[in-house]
């Protein structure tokens, strides 16, 4: 891979997370447990759409093949997507959505804090802008995990199940490979393997306050870096991409 291809690939990894997770949050529309929470979920979703647009727009420019944010979002098949397996997992109940959100929000915060120092000016600016939003997301999801964990017996059980159910998708977040390493070497990217300890410490603190157990799960799955996704992604894309795929000549 050339340097340019590596950077393009790296940007897809950053941007695709935002596209897919915002799509999942959009599915909550009209179904949130409280009207106020409806507003909160949509705010997070909107932030992610905004981040996705900035990052994919830049990715398209780096690639230089004439693909814009929408070409990238609406005309790639599952094997070309680079989002984490975690973010494509279905919403489940509110506890599952909050567990997924907490795992990702915390990771994204640590990742973007480091990316603010990126030598790539555009990445650095996007990271700085997004970080303000992400800090709020972390506050939102950790508040909820604590409330549900330390709430009723039912909510405690649901929250624990949700954490367990998604835990095996988290190790992938901290994987390094040739692309990640090249970006670190170029001073553009962040060594995600070094974020693990901090992420663990913060998760542990939140789970302790929530009276929840750190998941005792031995399985872990990975593959998104090579486009090996769970079966959920195909359906998500089929729905999301329907219009631009059905009417490729149209603009909207």
């Amino acid at each position, binding site marked *: 891979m050339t340097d340019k291809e590596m950077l393009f690939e790296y940007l897809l990894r950053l941007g695709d997370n935002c596209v897919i997770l915002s799509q999942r949050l959009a599915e909550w529309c009209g179904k949130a447990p*409280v*009207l*106020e*929470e409806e*507003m*909160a979920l949509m*705010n997070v979703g909107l932030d992610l759409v905004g981040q996705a647009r900035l990052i994919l727009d830049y990715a398209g420019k780096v690639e230089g093949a004439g693909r814009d944010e929408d070409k990238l979002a609406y005309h790639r098949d599952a094997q070309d997507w680079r989002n984490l397996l975690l973010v494509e997992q279905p919403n489940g109940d509110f506890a599952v959505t909050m567990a997924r959100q907490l795992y990702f929000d915390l990771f994204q915060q640590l990742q973007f804090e480091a990316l603010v120092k990126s030598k790539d000016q555009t990445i650095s600016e996007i990271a700085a802008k997004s970080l303000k939003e992400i800090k*709020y997301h972390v*506050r*939102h999801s950790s*508040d909820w995990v604590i*409330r549900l964990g330390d709430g009723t017996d039912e909510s405690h059980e649901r929250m624990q199940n949700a954490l367990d159910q998604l835990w095996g998708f988290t190790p992938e977040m901290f994987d390094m490979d040739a692309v990640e390493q090249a970006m670190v070497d170029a001073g553009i990217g962040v060594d995600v393997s070094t974020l693990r300890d901090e992420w663990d410490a913060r998760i542990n603190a939140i789970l302790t306050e929530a009276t929840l157990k750190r998941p005792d799960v031995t399985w872990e799955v990975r593959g998104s870096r090579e486009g090996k996704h769970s079966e959920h992604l195909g359906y998500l894309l089929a729905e999301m991409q329907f219009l631009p795929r059905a009417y490729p000549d149209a603009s909207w």
Partner: protein
Amino acid sequence: MSNTASELPLYEVFIRSKNGLHHKHVGSLHASDDEMALTNARDVYTRRSEGVSIWVVKTDNVVASQPEDKASFYDPNDDKMYRHPTFYNIPDEVGHM
């Protein structure tokens, strides 16, 4: 009504739109605790950058005067015009005071 007991408490929301102005009542919302009330207020009432500061107060904690008290609360001040500057006649020659 069956669910009223489990309804989240009501909070009143006050927003300072910019420094130099008072916080102003903008409406209410439901939240289980103060932190949720504050973040909900942010999500509900400042979507268009309407504020730089938010107060939330549990509605139960608001102490309000009653309309029936209007006469004894406010009317007695209607005849105390000496509290207003226009009560005093100062000749024009003195200038602005």
